[in-house]
């Protein structure tokens, strides 16, 4: 698993949501939050996606809201560039090139959906 972090500014006049994404390197891409679950920091999918209100800027960062790439089909290496499409609700999806960097932060365990 690896996290994707960025700063998004919603320049539209309506709320939008990050609901997931697609990447060639990952089987699944989810919008995640980090929460205290049973006394430990865990990350899980955000119900309904990550909200970015009209005109506002939101930063995805380690230990907070982020996009999670799961089921990597090859190791993602430091200094590589990975293409990742972010799926939005309320605006069209966007594809970016993301530089891969090492990070010691964001070492939470994953709490899969229980349904």
């Amino acid at each position: 698993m690896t996290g994707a972090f960025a700063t998004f500014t919603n320049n539209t006049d309506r709320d939008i949501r990050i609901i997931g994404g697609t990447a060639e390197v990952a089987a699944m891409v989810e919008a995640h939050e980090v929460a205290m679950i049973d006394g430990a920091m865990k990350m899980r999918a955000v119900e309904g996606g990550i909200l970015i209100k009209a005109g506002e800027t939101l930063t995805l960062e380690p230990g907070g809201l982020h996009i999670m790439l799961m089921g990597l089909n090859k190791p993602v290496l430091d200094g590589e560039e990975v293409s990742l499409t972010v799926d939005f609700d309320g605006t069209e999806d966007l594809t970016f090139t993301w530089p891969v960097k090492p990070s010691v932060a964001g070492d939470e365990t994953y709490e899969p959906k229980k349904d």
Partner: protein
Amino acid sequence: MINRRGFLTGTAVAAVSATTAGAAAAAIAADQTAKEFSERANTAVLKKAEPFFGKHQNGIELELQTFTTFIALDIKPETNKAAMLRWMRLLTDDIARIAKGEATVAEPHEELSLGPARSTVTVGFGPTLFEKLDLQNEVPKTFERIPAFKIDQLKPEFSDGDVLIQVSADDPLVLSHSVRALTRDSMGFAEVRWTQSGFTNAQGVVPGGTRQRNLMGQVDGTDNPALGSDDFDNLVWIKDGPKWAVGGCIMVLRRIAMNLNTWDALGRSDKEQVIGRKLSNGAPLTGENETDIPDFEAEDENGLKVIAGFAHVRRASPTNLNERFFRRPFNYDCGLSKDGNPDVGLLWPAYMANLDQYVSVQRRLAEFDLLNKWTTPIGSSVWAIAGGVAEGAILAQELFSS
């Protein structure tokens, strides 16, 4: 350029004058201006920036910064050329941001990216890297390990290495923060072999330049090629060589320990005799000003040479124009021994297009230079410094894509 602060001040004054007497408004305006001026003066050192993209890497042809840290790294066994290129991609982006005083991507402490403070980062490669990655065809002319000199007492913890990252800045906190960012992004590819830190004068203490006093009291850096001159260009930058090295250079880094306890046992004129220069202003014993050319033939009333045969300036003096290079020395101070002898000396980098420019001079100094009695080289390394980076390109791209 109208800055934001200036603009806001103007508005405030206008608003005040609408409701109060003109004199009060003028007083407030003067107060604001003084405050603004002092604030600008207080942060002037922080705001100066050195461009990174260009023909040459930054960190070499510029006036001394106040602080520097040299980091030598050894690559991990699995680090191949492709990994080197990925590493250089990360470093290139980091360096470009650091030079502008911006936080690097994914920086966990953005608030520590205070400003540029003339931050520069210079990257070079040691002879062992070319061997490990089978890059012998990419070695710049004359670049190899420097020969052992009989005066050397080299310690492995200050010597050699595969990759060098030199970080310099006018502020120690800015420097430390940059070192952290660059190291963090390097640990996937290499481990740290050694770090060595040095300093010069604080900004605003001495006139600018590359000449400063070292901790033995001597003016160091006299007779350097002038920054921005053709002389500098000819002596330092590689013009003919592998593509990645054109616009780069060869750097020798020596750690030279000083024994100040025994040095200070000498009288003032003895110290001047050892160097061949006056302590007061660095002028040769045969001249008045620092920049005067030493007269090696001059004799005193007893028929003895004014600048003695053993004097450092005589031994170091180039015998031909190919024996000159650019020095950019920093001091180091690592505390005191029990008996009060300071662990001090020079972090002495010399930059040149051709390694022979240095080796011939050092050979002569090692053979005979009275200064050797109080100074000991305890660290030594040699680096091929990559050429400059164009915007959008990767540092040493051609070396690792070959």
